[in-house]
């Protein structure tokens, strides 16, 4: 393989090696990455097989197929661009679903008194947490729109992956702090089970959003 300097083998084996090298260099959501790499692997194997069927010796067929296909280094940037956008959408979806849930939880506890009387420090902390989460959710919704059908008319902003990663990190921090705050407040509130449950939910959502934001940062740097 000219992209990795490996010696070409039979079409399938060679395509597998090519796909392996590509997959290990790419960052992005596992399912999207697997699908893209599998398609490329099959395409390369078919190209090699087509040249071999024309009567070319296997090694020449492999060389010609890779010249036409592009080496791993040549194909990598366009694949990474697409996977970065896939990760942006993945993170944006996670934030757009999780952050409003947090805002609703805080609203229920503060405006309706559902969880009983929460300590003053918790109530004071709740407003900025819910506010930042709501802003992150709005930014994420905008990122989803910008990378969906809207991208037919408007170019995708260059800094969108970084901005989405930051929105995800902000939402992750809000969810983490909320989880701790709710857990600490639940014994002090008048009706502790819903407060503790909301804290557990915030902890789970924090794990999901924070890991997705970290992956988005990796993609933005790739």
């Amino acid at each position, binding site marked *: 393989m000219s992209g990795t300097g490996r010696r070409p083998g039979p079409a399938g084996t060679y395509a597998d090696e090519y796909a392996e090298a590509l997959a290990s260099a790419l960052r992005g959501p596992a399912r*999207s990455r697997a*699908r*893209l790499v599998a*398609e*490329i692997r*099959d*395409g*390369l194997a*078919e*190209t090699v097989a*087509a040249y071999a069927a024309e009567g070319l010796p296997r090694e020449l067929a492999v060389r010609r197929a890779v010249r*036409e*296909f*592009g080496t791993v280094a*040549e*194909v990598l940037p*366009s*694949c990474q*661009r*697409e996977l970065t*956008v*896939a990760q942006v*959408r993945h993170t944006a979806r996670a934030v757009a679903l999780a952050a409003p849930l947090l805002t609703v939880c805080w609203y229920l506890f503060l405006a309706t008194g559902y969880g009983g009387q929460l300590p003053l420090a918790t109530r004071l902390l709740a407003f900025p947490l819910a506010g930042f989460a709501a802003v992150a959710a709005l930014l994420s919704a905008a990122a989803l729109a910008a*990378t*969906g*059908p809207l*991208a*037919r008319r408007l170019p995708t902003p260059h800094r969108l992956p970084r901005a989405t990663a930051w929105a995800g990190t902000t939402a992750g921090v809000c969810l983490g702090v909320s989880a701790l705050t709710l857990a600490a407040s639940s014994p002090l509130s008048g009706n502790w089970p819903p407060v503790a449950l909301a804290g557990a939910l915030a902890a789970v959502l924090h794990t999901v959003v924070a890991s997705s934001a970290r992956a988005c940062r990796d993609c933005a740097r790739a």
Partner: protein
Amino acid sequence: MKADAVRGHLDGLLLAVLEPGPLHGYAIITAVQRRSAGALELRTGTVYPALNRLERIGLLRSSWDSTGERKRRRYELTDAGRRALADERTAWQAFTAAIGSVLDPAPHPGHAG
């Protein structure tokens, strides 16, 4: 035509070869090469992310095709894809007409003699 020159027109090329009906990735590549009689230098490995992008923005849709030996992803135009192809054709005709009129100007009747 060099790969760099082709890159800006890749979307239009992919949409055009899918106009007659659904195709899988490798068949799309061979259709582009066949239609251009091999004149277009295309880094075919970059076609797959381009197909993913066109699907993401709603110009293509894909499904698994299990006919034959292996499962393959088959792409087809959406209604938005057909409209985008018509727009690409209009823009391309306007572009080639403008460039052609500069490169190869028709003789002006007033300057004939």
